[in-house]
């Protein structure tokens, strides 16, 4: 029987599920055409879930399959912030296209509940279920508009590669179960040998698909481009945070107590993944004139920097530093990327007919001369681009700095060098957008006005990015405090 303590520890998750059910029913009992309250309700449930985090007791749940510790609490906060911001964005984006329905917000809330559960999971079966809850909701969000060719195609590609990855992860879990007699992450202490190594490799491949690490990244650009922009923003922020949370937990459990010398081999494999992801992600982003696709490749590159943080976390000398760097990075990236996609949502071309397959809807030339027409919008986009590039004083700089510091603490100099060099490469394509906005003459038609909710989302995100950039101490202190309760 679950005790009151268990329910209190699960409260953030339960509130999100309740919110999803309420939003789904709101569509059934809808009397008038007004749907403005739905995004408000979504934000209220996200806020309630975030507010419940400090009150959640630190507790082992479901017989050791999950834990409500500071780490999970931090991930929950990031997911809830991403959910609230993307709901604001979704409200404006969907309303102007006349496709706002309660199902959109219900799916987002279901997805967020899966992400929160994944942040808490310490067991492979629970992680599999959480990943599926999250993914099934996000696949549906990608296909949500149903009009036109792109959204269903994005969902189709995401679904096939995503469930392929889930199946690989599950088979790896089955081998893990055979080697250790349990699916708990802590059971790694008991096992060893080829069976465990094979299981862990397959699990790592499955997770690498989910976090879009090279060479398992092929789905990312297509899915990010084809999915409706608010859904893209939500998946870039939330799915990445949740998947990296579980990857970090898994790696920490792995180095905590495996009998064979897994530390070195694991460091080698993860290091290779990180280098490939940083280099390939940035290289492919370079020629992209389509800003949405550029942001997709940039999200792959960011996964590489996050992997550097995970590697630092796997070394005993930089464990706390690396883990808190991953958390800081996830928070900074989530806010920045949602802000960037919000500006993109305002700028994107609205197709006259849904099937018009023009690829220039997000072309960088649409940003030309934006600074003279919409100075604030251009200024916000410049902030987000600088944050993604890791230029001070922005949250992205704080995040990159903490990840590289952690890697330096682990004496992983090669990774630091590759990371810094690829970051410099990244500056080129991020600044291309800034240059277009500030130095090129306006040629396109006047951009549409930002809907008020989208403007709020952009303002909040930009403010957070700058505030964290100028005074990072509260965020980093919070991340460190989260680790003390782990």
């Amino acid at each position, binding site marked *: 029987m679950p005790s009151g303590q268990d329910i209190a520890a699960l409260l953030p998750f339960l509130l999100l599920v309740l919110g999803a059910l309420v939003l789904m029913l709101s569509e059934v009992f809808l009397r008038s055409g007004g749907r403005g309250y739905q995004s408000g309700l979504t934000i209220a449930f996200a806020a309630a879930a975030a507010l419940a985090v400090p009150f959640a007791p630190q507790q082992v749940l479901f017989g050791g399959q999950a834990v409500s510790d500071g780490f999970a609490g931090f991930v929950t906060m990031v997911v809830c912030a991403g959910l609230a911001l993307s709901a604001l964005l979704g409200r404006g984006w969907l309303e102007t296209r006349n496709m706002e329905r309660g199902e959109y917000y219900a799916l987002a809330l279901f997805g967020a509940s899966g992400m929160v559960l994944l942040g808490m999971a310490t067991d492979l079966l629970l992680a599999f279920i959480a990943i599926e809850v999250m993914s099934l909701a996000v696949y549906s969000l990608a296909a949500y508009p149903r009009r036109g060719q792109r959204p269903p195609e994005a969902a189709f590609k995401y*679904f*096939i590669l995503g469930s392929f990855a889930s199946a690989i992860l599950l088979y790896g879990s089955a081998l893990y*179960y055979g080697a250790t007699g349990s699916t708990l992450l802590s059971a790694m202490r008991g096992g060893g040998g080829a069976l465990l190594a094979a299981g862990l490799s397959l699990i790592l491949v499955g997770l690498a698909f989910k976090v879009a690490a090279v060479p398992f990244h092929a789905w990312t650009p297509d899915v990010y481009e084809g999915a409706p922009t608010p859904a893209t923003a939500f998946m870039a922020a939330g799915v990445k945070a949740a998947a990296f949370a579980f990857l970090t937990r898994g790696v920490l459990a792995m180095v905590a107590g495996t009998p064979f010398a897994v530390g070195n081999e694991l460091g080698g494999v993860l290091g290779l993944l990180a280098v490939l992801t940083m280099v390939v992600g940035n290289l492919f982003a370079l020629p992209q004139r389509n800003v949405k696709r550029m942001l997709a490749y940039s999200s792959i590159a960011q996964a590489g920097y996050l992997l550097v943080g995970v590697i630092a976390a796997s070394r005993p000398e930089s464990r706390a530093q690396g883990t808190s760097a991953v958390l800081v990075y996830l928070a900074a990236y989530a806010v920045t990327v949602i802000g960037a996609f919000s500006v993109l949502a305002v700028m994107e071309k609205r197709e006259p007919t849904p099937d018009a397959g023009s690829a220039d809807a997000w072309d960088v030339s649409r940003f030309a001369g934006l600074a003279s027409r919409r100075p604030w919008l251009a200024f916000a986009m410049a902030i987000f681009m600088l944050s993604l590039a890791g230029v001070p004083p922005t949250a992205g700089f704080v995040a990159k700095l903490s990840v590289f510091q952690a890697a330096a603490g682990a004496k992983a100099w090669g990774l630091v060098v590759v990371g810094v060099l690829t970051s410099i490469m990244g500056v080129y394509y991020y600044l291309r957008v800034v240059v277009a906005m500030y130095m090129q003459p306006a040629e396109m038609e006047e951009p549409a006005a930002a809907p008020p909710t989208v403007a709020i989302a952009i303002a909040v995100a930009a403010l957070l990015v700058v505030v964290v950039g100028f005074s990072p101490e509260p965020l980093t202190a919070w991340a460190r405090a989260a680790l003390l309760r782990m």
Partner: protein
Amino acid sequence: MVPGTHYLALAAFLFAIGFAGVLVKKNAIIVFMCIELMLNAANLTFIAFARQSGSMSGQAIAFFVIAVAAAEAAVGLAIVIAVYRTRGTISVDEVEALRDR
């Protein structure tokens, strides 16, 4: 009595068929069936190990996976139908409006 390793070998074989099918096959429904095959190979592995070790947890896991696979089928087939409606084909190769250009 069939030894446990036979079940494990069968499961590995099924997983390999499913894995290869996802990579090779063009029809989205076949690809989807191959993914289901991989999930069931994992189920069979769980059950075979549970039987070997005499613990019940592996068998319980199979039920969870069956439920998840059913949910996945519902969403997956809906997406396949949405793709078919917008372009009249479900061939994995012909669905390529989104790509690098």
